[in-house]
């Protein structure tokens, strides 16, 4: 029992050491020639516009939440679809229930106006 925990301990120490050593060595060996372009924020190669701390519309958050309904649905339905032939009627009913519950969430969000862009 205890030896197995020791392996986990060793693993954690090594896991923490490897990246820190890599970062320290890179910091020691790399040449440093900074210029304004290098120091600017990297944004997919496009020139940065404005400061990095703007306010986002809070509605993005609601959309993110609604998206989660479809996201979770896919995660569970893909394995179900793959094994559909072997699972039989019970799993089909379960999946229908699952979709019905998620649809309830979607109807709620829809009627509350979460899908309307203000």
């Amino acid at each position: 029992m205890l030896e197995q925990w020791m392996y986990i301990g060793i693993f954690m120490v090594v896991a923490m050491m490897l990246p820190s050593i890599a970062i320290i060595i890179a910091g020691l060996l790399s040449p440093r020639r900074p210029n304004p372009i290098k120091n600017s924020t990297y944004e997919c190669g496009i020139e940065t516009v404005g400061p990095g701390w703007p306010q986002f519309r809070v509605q993005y958050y609601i959309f993110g939440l609604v998206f989660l309904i479809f996201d979770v649905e896919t995660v569970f339905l893909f394995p179900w679809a793959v094994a559909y032939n072997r699972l039989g009627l019970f799993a089909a009913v379960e999946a229908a229930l699952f979709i019905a519950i998620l649809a309830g969430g979607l109807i709620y969000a829809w009627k509350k106006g979460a899908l309307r862009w203000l």
Partner: protein
Amino acid sequence: MSINDFLAILPVLVVLVTGVLVMVADVFLPEGRKGIAALLSGLGLAAGLGAALAAVPSTGTAFAGMVVADGFSLFLDALFAAVGLVGIGLAYDYFKRMRLQRGEYYTLLLFSIGGMMLMGHANDLVMFFLALELLSIPLYILSGFFRARLASQEAALKYFLLGAFSSGFVLYGIAMVFGGTASINLEGIVAAVRDGSANLTFLLVGAALLVVGFAFKVSAVPFHAWTPDVYEGAPSPLTGFMSSATKAAGFAALIRLLLVVFPALGENLAPVVSGLAALTMIAGNLIALVQTNIKRLLAYSSIAHAGYLLIGLVAVNSSAAGDAVAAMLFYLVGYAIANLGAWSVVVAAEQAEGRGLELEDYSGLGRKYPWLGVAMLVFMLSFIGVPLTLGFWGKLYLFRVALESGLFGLAVIGIAASLVSAYYYLRVVVYMFFRDGEGVARRDVWLNLIAIGSAAAVVLMALVPGDLLQVAAQAVLRVP
């Protein structure tokens, strides 16, 4: 998986499905017709109550050992459904009056009740955690239901942060128990302890962490700091529901854990739980003495009552285990009835903007509204434990169990604490009847019904305490 699995947790399913239905139905209800959502929720809870009463306790497990449906869990199902019904009665008029009528209140309340019921059914540490989160998360949201009120926001944030913190304790405890026994199923844990393959040190650490986590939920001292602030800031009908039901759910988990899972650790855990009980009784009652706000007063009172209940929890690992569980269930029911009644009076007396909650505001209320006044008198006497009330029998049975299992010190502290508590409970009555004031209360049929009905129940059920204890004694736990 068969139909029997679903039948085992039928009351839980009924309540949760109603919750989803109410959520969807609510968005189609026009403003001002939200009473239909309350009605639907009430019907769902009544159906859940019926399912719990009609169900036959089984000795097996369901869903591959994840849940049980023994007498204990069915008893708690009925208790939670009944408390939920009263909780809806408290809420309906209140939110209409406060212009905050929203169907989400009932949906979240139903989800929380579903979680509490599941807590009684749990037979796997993961189920305990799932039930804990299912009952807590809706309560975090409901505490902040008055979005515009600063105290309500503070209550929600405080409850959420400390609740999440206590969930962390539970989770770490589960991990430790798993580390010690290589199982998270109660059967597996008990088997590992029995055949000696368990590492008792890990198991003890895990059990202690679990006790800490659930002690947060039942607001035992020194894990009580959130209670007064949350109870004060949350909407009053929710506080009434929360203080009755959440406590019962926390004790449900503690009883099953200490009685079924950790009997081998009885000697190690008993002193800890005894200490918690003594501290909770003393601190809860002493701090309540100086409260001037009725909600804070009842919050400390609920802490004090958790202390009395903890005495029973100490006795759970003695030879009087069956009596201890029965006495605790009896006490929980008695406390829930008196507590919901007392909160119905608080809800009736509360004015807009959170005024009408100081003891001063209760001046003269009893003479102006004799029914409410007499009802409040009954609840306060029951809280003290005066004979002829349900609270008296609850305390009598608990202290008797304490004496049977040799816990003389705790019984003495409990009796002394009850005497001290008479001061602050009777102060409420003194304000209501013997002071002149402009106190006003809401005349609402549901609130009056709850106040008078609970008062009648507290007095009438005290006439047949033996039969009630018999019912509680039949609510036995399944021991693997």
